[in-house]
C-alpha cells in the first residue's frame, strides 16, 4: 500500500483538473491541435491546403489509423503489438505473390491467416507464458520476418499481381475522398462498437485497468489476451492488404515504417500505454496529426533521423505527462 516514494498530496491542483478533462475528452483538444497544425502548415506554404491535399492526407492516414487500432486495443490491456508492421508487410507480400497462383480471394484469405498465426503465437506468449508483450511481439516479428525471407525465396519467380479490389480501395477516389474510407468507416465503426458496446471490449479495459480485479470478477485473462492478439494480427493483415493497394509495389519492408507512427498515434490519441484507458477516435485524429506533422517536416526538409527521434520523444513526453497527471490523487 505505502510506496517507497510517497506522493505529496497537495500539488498542482489545476494541472490535475486540466489533466482530468483531457483524459475524459481527448478528442476535443486533439481536433483543436489538428486545426492549429493545419493553420501553421498553410502559413508555412500558402496555398498548400486544398481538397486534393486533404484527400491525400486522409488516404495515407487510414492505414496508420488501422494499425493504431492494434496498438489502442492491445494497450487497453497494458500491452503493445510491435509485430503489426511485419504482419502487414507479410500479408501484403503473400497476397501479391499468391494472386497469380491461386486467384485474388484465396490469396487474400491466406494473407489474413498470416495475421491469425502470428496473433496466436503472440497470444500464447503474453497470455499463457506471461512474457512482456513488448518482448514477445518483437520476437514474433523477428521470426515472421525470417519466415517471409524464406517464403520470398520460393515464390519470387512467380511474379506478383495485385487484386483489383485492393487497387480500387487503395488508389481510387470517390467525390474527392479516397476509396479507402469504404473499408475504413465500417472498420472504425466496428472497433468503436467493440470497445464500447461489447463484452469483449469491456474486458479489455478491465484486464488493463486491474487484472487482479478482473480475475476476481471471474475473467480468465489468458482467453482475453489470446483473442486480443489474434484480432490485432487480423487488423494488421487487413491493413497490409489495403496498403498493398495504395503502394502497389510489394516489398519485404512495405509497411515497416508504419510501426512506430502507429504507436505514436495511439499514445497521442489519449491511450494509456499502461492500460485501462484508450480511445480509438483519439487515435484516428492522432494519425491525421502525424500525417500533417510529417508534411511539415518534409516541407522543412527535416531529415529522416530527426523524424524518428521526434516520434520517440513524443511517445516519452506524452507518457511522462500521463504519469504526472494520474499519480496525483
Amino acid at each position, binding site marked *: 500500500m505505502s510506496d517507497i516514494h510517497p506522493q505529496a498530496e497537495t500539488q498542482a491542483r489545476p494541472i490535475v483538473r486540466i489533466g482530468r478533462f483531457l483524459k475524459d475528452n481527448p478528442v476535443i483538444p486533439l481536433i483543436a491541435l489538428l486545426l492549429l497544425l493545419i493553420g501553421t502548415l498553410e502559413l508555412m506554404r500558402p496555398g498548400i491546403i486544398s481538397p486534393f491535399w486533404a484527400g491525400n492526407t486522409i488516404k495515407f492516414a487510414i492505414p496508420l489509423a488501422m494499425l493504431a487500432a492494434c496498438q489502442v486495443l492491445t494497450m487497453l490491456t497494458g500491452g503493445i503489438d510491435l509485430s503489426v508492421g511485419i504482419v502487414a508487410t507479410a500479408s501484403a507480400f503473400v497476397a501479391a505473390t499468391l494472386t497469380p497462383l491461386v486467384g485474388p480471394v484465396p490469396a487474400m484469405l491466406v494473407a489474413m491467416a498470416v495475421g491469425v498465426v502470428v496473433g496466436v503465437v503472440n497470444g500464447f*506468449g503474453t497470455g499463457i507464458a506471461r*512474457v512482456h508483450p513488448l518482448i514477445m511481439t518483437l*520476437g514474433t516479428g*523477428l521470426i515472421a520476418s525470417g519466415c517471409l525471407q524464406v517464403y520470398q*525465396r520460393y515464390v519470387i519467380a512467380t511474379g506478383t499481381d495485385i487484386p483489383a479490389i485492393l487497387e480500387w480501395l487503395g488508389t481510387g477516389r470517390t467525390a474527392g475522398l479516397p476509396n479507402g474510407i469504404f473499408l475504413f468507416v465500417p472498420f472504425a465503426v466496428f472497433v468503436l462498437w467493440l470497445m464500447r458496446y461489447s463484452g469483449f471490449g469491456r474486458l479489455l479495459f478491465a484486464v488493463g485497468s486491474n487484472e487482479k480485479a478482473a480475475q476476481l470478477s471471474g475473467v480468465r485473462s489468458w482467453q482475453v489476451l489470446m483473442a486480443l492478439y489474434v484480432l490485432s494480427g487480423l487488423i494488421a493483415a487487413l491493413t497490409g492488404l489495403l496498403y498493398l493497394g495504395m503502394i502497389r509495389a510489394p516489398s519485404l519492408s512495405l509497411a515497416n515504417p508504419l510501426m512506430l507512427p502507429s504507436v505514436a498515434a495511439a499514445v497521442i490519441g489519449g491511450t494509456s500505454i499502461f492500460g485501462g484507458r484508450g480511445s480509438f477516435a483519439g487515435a484516428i485524429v492522432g494519425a491525421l496529426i502525424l500525417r500533417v506533422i510529417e508534411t511539415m517536416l518534409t516541407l522543412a526538409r527535416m531529415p529522416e533521423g530527426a523524424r524518428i*527521434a521526434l516520434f520517440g520523444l513524443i511517445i*516519452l513526453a506524452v*507518457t511522462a505527462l500521463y504519469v504526472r497527471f494520474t499519480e496525483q490523487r
Partner: protein
Amino acid sequence: MSFVRRNAWTLGLVALMVVLLGVTRLIQPNFGVSGLESLARAALPFAFATAAMAVVVIVGGIDLSVASMMAVCSVTAAVLMQTMGGVPAILITLAVGTLMGLINGVLIVLTRVPDIVVTLAMLFVWEGTALLILNSPGGIAAPFLREAIAGSVLIHGLPKALILMAIIVAVIWVPLKRSKLGLAIYATGSDENAAFRSGVAVGRTKAAAYAVCGLFSAFGGLSLLALTGIGEPVPGPYLLAAVAAVVLGGAVLGGGIGGLLGPIIAVFILRIIRTILTLAAVDPNVTTIVEGTIMVGVVMFGAFLMMRGRSPS
C-alpha cells in the same frame, strides 16, 4: 563443492558450449583456428550488447535501446576517426555511450515511467540520432581497431577478439561487482524495498547501472565498427538476442540474480548454433527463424521461471 553448486548453471553452459563445439567439429572436420577466430569476432557485438543488457536486468530493469545506442556509438566513432586519431575517438565514443545510458537511467528515475516504456521511446530517439550523425553507412575505422579483433594472440587458436572482450568486461565488471555500487545494484534488483531500508540510494543506483549499460553498448558499437570497417546507422538485431542470452545465461528478468559470465557464454552458445546451422548448409533465412524461435522460447522459459519464483511469496 559450494563453488560447483553456486555456479552450476554457468558450468552447465560451459559444458553445453564444449559439446556444441564438438558437434561443429563433427559436422565440419575442417573447423579449426580460423573458424574459431571468425566465431569470436562475429560474437563480439552480441557479447557487449548482452553485457550491457545483463547489467540493467540485474538492477531489475531492461533496456530496449541497447542496439540503437550501439548504432549511435558506431557512427560517432566512424565519423570521428575521419578527422582525429583513433584513441581520442574511442574515448569520446565511450563517453557518449555512458552519457546515453545515464540519460536513459535518469529519465526512468525522474519520470517514474516504467523502464520498458522509457527505453522503447529512447530506442527511437537514439536510432534517429544515429541517422542524424550519419545518414547512410560511412566513415572509417582506424586500422588498429580492425587489427585488434583479427587473428589470434599469444598462442595459435586463442582468438584476439575473445581475449579483448574478456579483458574489457573483466576490467569494468570485476571491480564494479566488488564495489559498494555493485552490491547496491544486486540489492536493488533483488528487492528494491529491502534495499531502500538497508540504506541503498535506489534511484542513483539505477541510474548508474544504466550508465554502465551505455558504456558496454559503446564497446558494442566500437566492435561493430571494427568488424565492418564502416559506421552503420541502422540498429542491428541485437536487442532480442541480448535479452535471450541474458535469460539463457542465468540472469532472472526481474533482477538480483546472475552475472556477466553466464550471459556471455550464452552468446557463444547461440552463435555456435548459428555456425552449426550454416555449416549444415541450412538456408541463412531459415537459420534466422530457428534462432528467433530459440530466443523467443528461451525468453518464454525465463518468464515462466520468474512466475514460479514469485508465486510463493
